[in-house]
Structures are given as C-alpha cells and as structure tokens.
C-alpha cells in the first residue's frame, strides 16, 4: 500500500510546494500580522506592517547561497549594524506570498538572525530593517534554485 504521505513526499516538486493560488488560513494568534503575510510585494508587506516605502541601503545585509541545490531549504540571514532597529524581515520575491519571517528584536540580541526558507523558483530575496525612527531599509540578493535528483 502506498500512503498519502509517501505519495506526497514523492510527487511534490518544490514548485508544487508553493503552487500559486491558495490562501493563508486565519491565524490562531491575534497578533500574527495576517495582512503582511498575504502581501504579494515587498512594498505591500512593509506597508501592512506599518512601515514607509523601503529604501535600498548598504547598511543592511542579506546572506544566502548564490545557488540553492534545493528550494525546499534555503538558508537566509539578515543583519544590520545600525542602532535602533525594531524589526528585521526576510522576504522571497517570487514566492506566492513574499513575506517569510518577521523578527521583533530587542536590545538584548544582536541584529543578525538566520533561518531557512522555501523558494519555489530562482528569485530575489530581501532583508529589511524597520527602524525606530520610521525608516525602512533593505538589501537584495539573487538566489538561483536548481533542479535536482532524478526528477521523480
């Protein structure tokens, strides 16, 4: 017998993982920023979080591989050396919903965080720093997602 789970694991391509169409469910948490996670663009996501128009800045950095062997797991990091950061964000431009993570930082940690995200295809990724003074700064990087395995 073939289980549903096996079938899924095997048939789901990364593109399938992030197939367009679809919606996010209602949050179990009142504070979870639904509108931001529904956003399709960087500007809309930032706006939904109450930020102004984002400006590219070399004071913000995004780290990640140039090539991801698998889009299911792409290591990304966001950092800035600027003081007065309220939030750091990670976004993937060509995902159906661009926003991946919001980090509400405090003075007790360094403004340098890493996680791993899914990417449906090659795309720009963004690190965004939302500052206490209302400024929104970002950095971009292109990551190529390759096709792997036997394709089955």
């Amino acid at each position, binding site marked *: 017998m073939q289980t549903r789970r096996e079938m899924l694991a095997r048939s789901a391509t990364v593109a399938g993982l992030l197939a367009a169409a679809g919606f996010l469910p209602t949050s179990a948490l009142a504070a979870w920023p639904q509108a931001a996670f529904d956003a399709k663009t960087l500007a809309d996501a930032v706006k939904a979080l109450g930020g102004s128009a984002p400006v590219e800045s070399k004071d913000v950095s995004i780290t990640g591989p140039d090539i991801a062997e698998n889009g299911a797991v792409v290591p990304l990091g966001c950092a800035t050396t600027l003081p007065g950061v309220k939030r750091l964000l990670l976004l993937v431009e060509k995902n159906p919903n661009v926003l991946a993570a919001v980090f509400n930082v405090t003075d007790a940690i360094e403004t340098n965080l890493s996680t791993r995200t899914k990417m449906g295809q090659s795309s720009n990724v963004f690190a965004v720093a939302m500052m206490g003074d209302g400024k929104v700064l970002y950095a971009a990087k292109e990551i*190529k997602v390759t096709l792997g395995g036997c*394709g*089955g």
Partner: protein
Amino acid sequence: MKKLRLLAGGTLAAALLAGCATGPSPAEMDAKANQLIKSSFRDQGIAKTDRLAQDLGQSACSSDKAPDDATADKIMAEALFTVKWPAGGQFIGDWRTGERLAQDGRGMTWTDNSTDPKSNGGNCYNCHQIDKKEISYGTIGPSLWNYGKNRGITDPAAPATAPIVQYTWVKLWNSKAYSACSNMPRFGHKGLLDEQQLRDIMALLLDPKSPVNQ
C-alpha cells in the same frame, strides 16, 4: 622457526582450500543470487515483478565484466532489428516540447500511475548536458550541447544529413544497437516514449533553431 612458519602456512592454505571446496561455486552463487533477488521484490502499482525477468542484453550486462564479442554483436544486431522508423519519414518535431521532455525525469516508477508514454519524461538532463543555459545536468552520458551544429546539420530534412538523423533516431529508439551494454534506456523499444515524443527530442538535438545548436 622458518620451518614452523612454513608448516603453519601449509595448514592455513589447506584450511582455505577446504573452505573453498565446501563453498558454492561462482555458478551456484549466480543461481542463488538470482533466486534471492527474485524473492526479495513484490508488485507495487505499475511496477510488477515481471520487470526482473531479463532479456539477453540485460543478463549479459549484469556483471563487472563486459560480455564476449559474439554476445555483444548478437545484442547489437537484435537491437538494430527492433528499430521502427517514424511514420512518413518525419524525424523532426518541436524542440520546445523536446526540451520539456528532456527536463522531465518522471515515469514508470511504482509511484507513477500509468505506463502510457504520455505520462513519461525523457530523463535526458539527468545524464547529459544539453542546453547550456541549464546548469543542473548530469555527466553519465556525453554532453549534447551543439549536437546538431557539431555534426554540420543546417537542414535536418536535407538528404545529406540522413545518416546522422537516422543514427540519432536509432540511438533514441534502442541504444543497444550501437553499444551492447549502453547505460541509456531503450526509449522506443521499451515504449518509454512514443514516436511524436521522440521526434520532439530529435528536434531538440538537431533543429538548427533549437537552443542546443546556438
């Protein structure tokens, strides 16, 4: 001292000989392995245990030694005999569809639902470089970048190109026609791809407009 060591050596050799004498012969091992292989598998979906039954090309190419020349010749001759030429002598299809097939590695596993060639891919990029823009390609087979261009194909329909066009068709239909133990699947012979799909892959390789030949 030296004698003692010799004696010990002799005993060991005798023991080894005795061990060999009681162990199975290579032929017995082959038979036993075949039986154990067959009993280890079961049907699952479209992948039935009859897939373990070997034809000559499979059984003769199932060890780390190549088959003898006579066997290899027989495999190649039989393979060539199986080739069906495309209807109406039409060898070339659409390279765009060919590229999609080349990218697609699916089909014929126990998690696939149908054995219809329409549900299969060509698996080409798993083993070959083809369009140079695709960086994720395998190296089990040779690079096919500029396949047609390198062979001077400017018009695949021109009579002068017939030998190369036909060679390529045979290679795709039954690769064992040119190499008895080729690693390449027999796409036409085993019904993995249909005639139109093969034409499309032919176009990917031979059409001067295909990105492969830029």
